[in-house]
């Protein structure tokens, strides 16, 4: 979802909303979150890098585990748990993967690069969205992630794969903003339902083969539909890469959640869909 800032009234309302709203519930973590967590055991060297690489600000993440970074029930630890998967969790196999870690990190990390102008990550308390990209006139643009990505009581997306998938989705709105692409007027998507898209926020799927993009080249486009990506597509491709070509230590629960999310999104969110189907349907 994409949002434009600038209207003073909207900004005031947002500030008011931030002031009065409650944090999302932070009482437990999903099995996928705790399984991934148990592969690193709360590695402090990583979160001390991650908060800088994603430009997380203590003011935004207070009361969300900022001072309790090893408590996986809290939002901030869940945020860096997803980053851990993005940073280390993929095989980067030239023969099989859609894209490489360098692409997914470039899309989700803060630094201005080929993928986007500089961004920072913040939490919002809104059960109506997974996340949003907000442009700012001054300073970095903003990638927000919300309750359904953190609270397992609210949504199936409260797992590290889907959370990382949303970093890609919102990061790709930032890519569209950087290069002036118009992806539609419904929160940065085409309004739906339309075509084969059954939700209200629809994208096109710009099909491409394996190896069409060298690792590090996902940001490229040629101005035509033959070399382009939409936010939902980048999200699906990331989830597929987690499900099918992860590092050997990525837990089964994370891979299963990634596949389920990729396939539901590929079936529902594309006007010219369906997108690719990820993985074979053997139960285990």
């Amino acid at each position, binding site marked *: 979802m994409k949002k434009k800032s600038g209207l003073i009234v909207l900004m005031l309302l947002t500030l008011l909303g931030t002031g009065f709203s409650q944090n999302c519930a932070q009482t437990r973590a999903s099995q996928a979150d705790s399984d991934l967590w148990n592969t690193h055991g709360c*590695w402090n060297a990583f979160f001390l890098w991650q908060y800088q690489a994603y430009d997380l600000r203590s003011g935004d993440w207070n009361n969300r585990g900022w001072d309790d970074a090893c408590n996986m029930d809290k939002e901030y630890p869940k945020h860096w748990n997803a980053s851990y998967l993005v940073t280390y969790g993929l095989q980067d196999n030239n023969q099989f993967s859609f894209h490489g870690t360098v692409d997914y990190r470039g899309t989700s990390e803060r630094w201005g690069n080929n993928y986007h102008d500089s961004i920072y990550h913040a939490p919002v308390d809104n059960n109506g969205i997974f996340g949003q990209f907000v442009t700012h006139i001054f300073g970095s643009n903003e990638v927000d992630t919300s309750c359904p990505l953190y609270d397992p009581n609210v949504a199936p997306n409260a797992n590290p794969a889907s959370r990382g998938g949303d970093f890609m989705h919102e990061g790709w709105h930032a890519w569209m903003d950087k290069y002036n692409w118009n992806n539609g007027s419904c929160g940065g998507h085409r309004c739906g339902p339309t075509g084969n898209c059954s939700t209200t926020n629809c994208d096109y799927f710009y099909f491409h083969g394996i190896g069409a993009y060298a690792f590090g080249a996902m940001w490229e486009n040629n101005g035509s539909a033959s070399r382009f990506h939409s936010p939902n597509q980048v999200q699906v491709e990331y989830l597929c890469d987690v499900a099918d070509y992860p590092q050997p230590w990525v837990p089964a629960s994370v891979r299963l959640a990634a596949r389920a999310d990729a396939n539901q999104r590929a079936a529902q969110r594309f006007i010219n869909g369906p997108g690719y189907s990820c993985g074979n349907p053997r139960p285990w």
Partner: protein
Amino acid sequence: MRWFQGVLVAVLGLTCIAQVKQKGEEKEAATSPQQTIQQSTAPSAQQPPLASPSRFREEQKLRTAPQFVLNGPEVKRSVERFVAWAGATHIEEAETVRKSIANVKENREIATALCDYAFESAKVDHARTLVSLALLGEMRHPAGQECLRRFVHLPFPEKGTIVDGEIIEQTNLAMLQAKAVDGLAYLHDPKADEEVLWAASKHPSRVVRAEAIDAYLWNHGDSAQAREQLARVVRPDEKIFLDRIRRVQGENAESFNRKLDGYLKSHPDRLPPKPEQQAKKVTKRPQTMDRAAQERLAQDRVAQPVKPTEPPAQ
């Protein structure tokens, strides 16, 4: 009522001013060049530092599969322990999980306990439910078949929380029912196949219909006969799912790309239109800013690391 409106406006105004001030102070604290990020704003934990994840994982690999209790009141707890273990397993342990399940494939009590656990978890932990349904499907027990059938027919919620245009309770259940359909299709049993064909055509969710089509085809070796059977029942506007590209583990780029080329040639209507460029946006950082804005921008730039940094080695 005029006095009330006046008070309301005043309260809102004061709150805004207070919050703007607070935000400003926070931002100042976070961006001031005198206070480096490391000194002032780093997150902290209440446990001692860990050496490295790679060593941590080595220690974890020593864990073995928990044994199932075959009957009695302890079956349920042993199933829960197994689900917890299986969810955490690595790719190389997939065969160990399959073998453990194959060893108990005749055991009705275990199948029933797995089924109960899947239903119990459905509203509280999506990933755990996926793991439970996956194990139940892999087991291929008649009690599992009945359970998966019941799961696929759980009433589909018509109302709920709308998240990004979808009713999240629907999506949650649909993703789980899609996993249950995978288990039914894997049974290779005529009655189970009937259920899969029903799901492919009549399930209220497109997510489940799509998975049913894919699972039916895959479990019938993507045969022409399976395609014909499906073509007779699927919705006319969903016949495209019969030709959908499936990316599977171990399939190389050449094979996948050949399939994709064929798909796009047979379905030129699936090619997306040319992306639209929008009018050149207003310069992001206008030159005509006041001093305060200029100061804020300068501070923000100072706070950005000069170069991206690399994550620590595992």
